[in-house]
């Protein structure tokens, strides 16, 4: 919208001129005088409400005159009171003027403030010392050892807390607090060599004893994701820089898991309320945390490593309302917005002189689970028919087109990925035939209930309903609160179809757990998975996982609607903001905002 932005510019210019003239005057007006202020405000281009008020004031005058004339006409004795009446009328008018003045005063004050702010334009290119980033899902507390949710990983991992190892934007394991490691030949023992001279933000030294303590606490107290550390036997600090971790059996995902929550290292000597504070070794510290609203990160002055913060203050703001988020980027209150729905990002795409919009890969799988033990969905033909009937291209196109089709449980950034979209291509005739075989036609449809959380909007449900209708499925869409979904679907497994965004990475083990809400069980899958986890090389692991994923997809316990890709919109001038995986892994140390010359 280049034309529009030009128009804004003009407006701003006129406003600031007016302000320049009026600034001193207003200061005087605030002190006491009244009538001038309302003029002033109108000049400054105040709100519509004022204009209305003025109009009303005039209206009142005219109405009153007719009224008075009327009164005078009927009562003779009032002729002398006429002047008195005018006096009263003035009093009344003054009351209205006073009301207008109050509103105008506020408006004028606000306008002047804003313009003053705007007038401090950057004289040259400089790197901003503060960047504000708009995000969506807000953490309720900072207790990363107990509280679930990717929003906590997003803000804390790699920024405030650091892990024994880390992962890069391709979801591969890279050195973290440990600069190198060795795996024993049997795959059951790992030795980590730590960096030297590390410390926490409170000044405490970070050494092998903190690492061993953190992992032991995790296991002993069953902190969040402790079960991801499979086959764990023991962890010990053999000296100040070396940590030895032993397993009861090989576990191919161990290093990756240690790059996530299970590998985070905490200060064993620090005593603080983990829900509201954070003491870590990362490049940032949490300066302020307002639950569900914002987090302010400040560069950690005691940071030990190479990821030194480029921007000294980073504010993360959380927007429940997508439109408010978009407005915040337009008005410059935030410089980055991630995620933004593609449809809302359109104005930024068009205005490519001022904004940059890009999508990044992620491990979000929109899983349409079909209860494998459900009364109606235990029939394989029904589940297969649903997979054939869903037009994934259409679903993706209606969301803007950035998402990727996904034919199975493993997304492209996870080990074991292969393109399985060919297993159930869109084929309505085949779907109809399968449904007919199962005993349902469009005239005698099968009634199914789809339960999903209201965070995903109603469009997906509507689209699925209309796509499944022609094959003889009457889909009742039941959009609920997330906590209700947790109770009904995840805990009680009381559902026909369910949809949720499984954004976790390396989460294939879900398909090997009989107790998980999918109600899915296949020994072949479990065998492949166990072999994969025991594999000695990554390529062997990946091949076995791929086999397992193919079997799962063939059994059709779910349909993978798409692999959600995060769209990020940012002001041009912002650099170093990660695009891949940025809803779970958001290293901020390299984020910079260079303001442009005008």
């Amino acid at each position: 919208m280049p034309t529009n932005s030009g128009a804004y510019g003009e407006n701003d210019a006129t406003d600031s001129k007016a302000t320049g003239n009026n600034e001193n005057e207003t200061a005087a007006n605030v002190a006491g005088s009244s009538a001038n202020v309302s003029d002033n405000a109108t000049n400054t281009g105040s709100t519509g409400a004022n204009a209305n008020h003025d109009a009303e004031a005039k209206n009142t005058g005219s109405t009153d005159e007719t009224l008075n004339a009327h009164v005078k006409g009927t009562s003779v004795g009032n002729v002398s009171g006429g002047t008195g009446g005018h006096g009263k009328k003035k009093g009344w008018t003054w009351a209205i003027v006073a009301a207008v003045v109050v509103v105008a005063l506020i408006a004028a004050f606000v306008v002047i403030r804003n313009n003053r702010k705007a007038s401090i334009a950057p004289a040259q290119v400089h790197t901003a010392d503060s960047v504000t980033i708009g995000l969506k899902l807000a953490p309720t507390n900072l207790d990363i050892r107990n509280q679930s949710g990717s929003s906590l990983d997003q803000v804390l991992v790699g920024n405030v807390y650091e892990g024994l190892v880390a992962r890069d934007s391709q979801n591969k394991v890279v050195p973290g607090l440990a600069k190198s490691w060795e795996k024993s030949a049997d795959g059951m023992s790992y030795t980590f060599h730590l960096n030297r001279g590390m410390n926490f933000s409170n000044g405490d030294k970070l050494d092998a004893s903190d690492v061993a303590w953190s992992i032991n606490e995790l296991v002993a107290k069953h902190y969040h994701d402790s079960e991801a550390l499979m086959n764990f036997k023991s962890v010990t600090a053999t000296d100040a820089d070396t940590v030895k971790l032993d397993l009861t059996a090989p576990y191919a995902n161990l290093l990756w898991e240690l790059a996530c929550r299970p590998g985070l290292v905490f200060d064993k000597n620090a005593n603080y309320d983990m829900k509201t504070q954070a003491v870590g070794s990362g490049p940032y510290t949490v300066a302020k945390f307002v639950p569900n609203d914002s987090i302010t990160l400040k560069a950690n002055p005691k940071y030990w490593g190479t990821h030194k913060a480029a921007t000294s203050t980073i504010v993360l703001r959380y927007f429940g309302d997508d439109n408010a988020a978009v407005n915040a980027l337009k008005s410059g209150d935030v410089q980055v917005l991630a995620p933004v729905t593609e449809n809302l990002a359109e104005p930024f795409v068009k205005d490519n002189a001022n904004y940059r919009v890009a999508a990044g890969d992620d491990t979000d799988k929109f899983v349409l689970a079909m209860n494998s033990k459900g009364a109606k969905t235990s029939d394989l033909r029904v589940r297969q028919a649903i997979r054939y009937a869903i037009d994934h291209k259409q679903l993706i196109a209606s969301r803007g087109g950035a998402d990727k089709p996904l034919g199975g449980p493993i997304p492209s950034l996870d080990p074991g990925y292969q393109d399985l979209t060919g297993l159930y291509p869109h084929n309505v005739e085949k779907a109809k035939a399968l449904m007919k075989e199962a005993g349902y036609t469009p005239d005698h449809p099968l009634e199914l209930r789809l339960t999903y959380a209201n965070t995903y909007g109603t469009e997906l449900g509507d689209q699925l309903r209309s796509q499944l209708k022609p094959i003889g499925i009457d889909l009742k869409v039941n959009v609920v609160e997330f906590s209700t979904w947790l109770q009904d679907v995840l805990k009680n497994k009381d559902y026909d179809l369910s949809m949720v965004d499984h954004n976790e990475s390396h989460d294939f083990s879900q398909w090997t757990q009989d107790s998980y809400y999918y109600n899915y069980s296949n020994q072949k899958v479990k065998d492949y998975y166990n072999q994969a986890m025991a594999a000695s090389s990554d390529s062997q692991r990946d091949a076995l996982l791929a086999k397992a994923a193919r079997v799962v997809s063939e059994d059709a316990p779910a349909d993978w609607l798409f692999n959600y890709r995060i769209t990020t919109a940012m002001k041009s001038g912002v650099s170093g903001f990660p695009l891949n995986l940025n809803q779970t892994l958001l290293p901020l140390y390299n984020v910079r905002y260079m303001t442009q010359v005008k």
Partner: protein
Amino acid sequence: MRFVIRRFLLFVAALLAISVVIFAALRILPGDVASVMAGLNAPPERVAQLRSQMGLDRPLIVQYFSWMGGLLHGDFGTSLLTGRSISSMVAMRASVTFPLIVLGLVVALAIGLTLGVVATLATRPAVRSAFHFVAIVGGAIPALWGGLLLILLFGRGTGLLGILPSQGFPEAGWSSFGSALASLVLPALTVGIIDGASLMRYTRSALGDVMNSGYIDQAMACGYTRRQAALKVGLRLATPQLVSVVGLMFAGMITGVMVIESLFALPGIGAGLITDLGNRDLIAVQSELFMLAAFFLFVGFLVDLLHRFLDPRLKHAVQGGAQ
């Protein structure tokens, strides 16, 4: 005085009843904070462990009395999720919501009272129906739509006259007074214009009733013009009725501005309540609801008192009836 005591006892009894209703109703909701905390991949044992850590496995009666016990000491409890005291959370949110409501009410009063009085005094049928139209249209505007319209007109970055922030509350809060106030202007206008329209209708009907009564004829017989009579006598007589309306409007706005808060991304009471409820942070929700109910009742109580103060006739009427 007897009246005050009687009202106060009623106030306490109502609060007790409300506490039971709130507590019971929230326990009917499916889902709990432990499973929200544990997330999608946690094994059931982890959820059970969290439940017992947070004391959610205690009998409901015990949970109720431990909550009530805290309330009696003025302790509203600690949020299970945020780990902060609920009173401090509410105070933080109220520092956004209350100024918003007060500003909204000022706008509503400026619009509603002025237009209401003018509409009553208007004699020409065309003018009267024009005001009637304004009142109906204004009252019928959905808050969300009205807010969006104002953002499109005045929101910085989006508006035709982009001078006002359209979302968020300054991070520094009221210590950066100017931007805090600026961030509340558009939301307050949204609330104010819509409530102003309904206040206009109330004003007109209250004043209209008085205008048709003998008081006005009496005043006019004493030499007032119709307009003078309306302003000097009519408004005074209509005041008690208007005070009730404004009182209720004020109380109702606390939750009524919920939509506005979410549209303008303000961290207020309504937005907070929705989040807490979504997370099933029941201890927080029940204390917040309790505070709201208490506040609502308290405003009602004040309005009653004010009513009697403004309209001495009420007192005599009651006493007369008793004798």
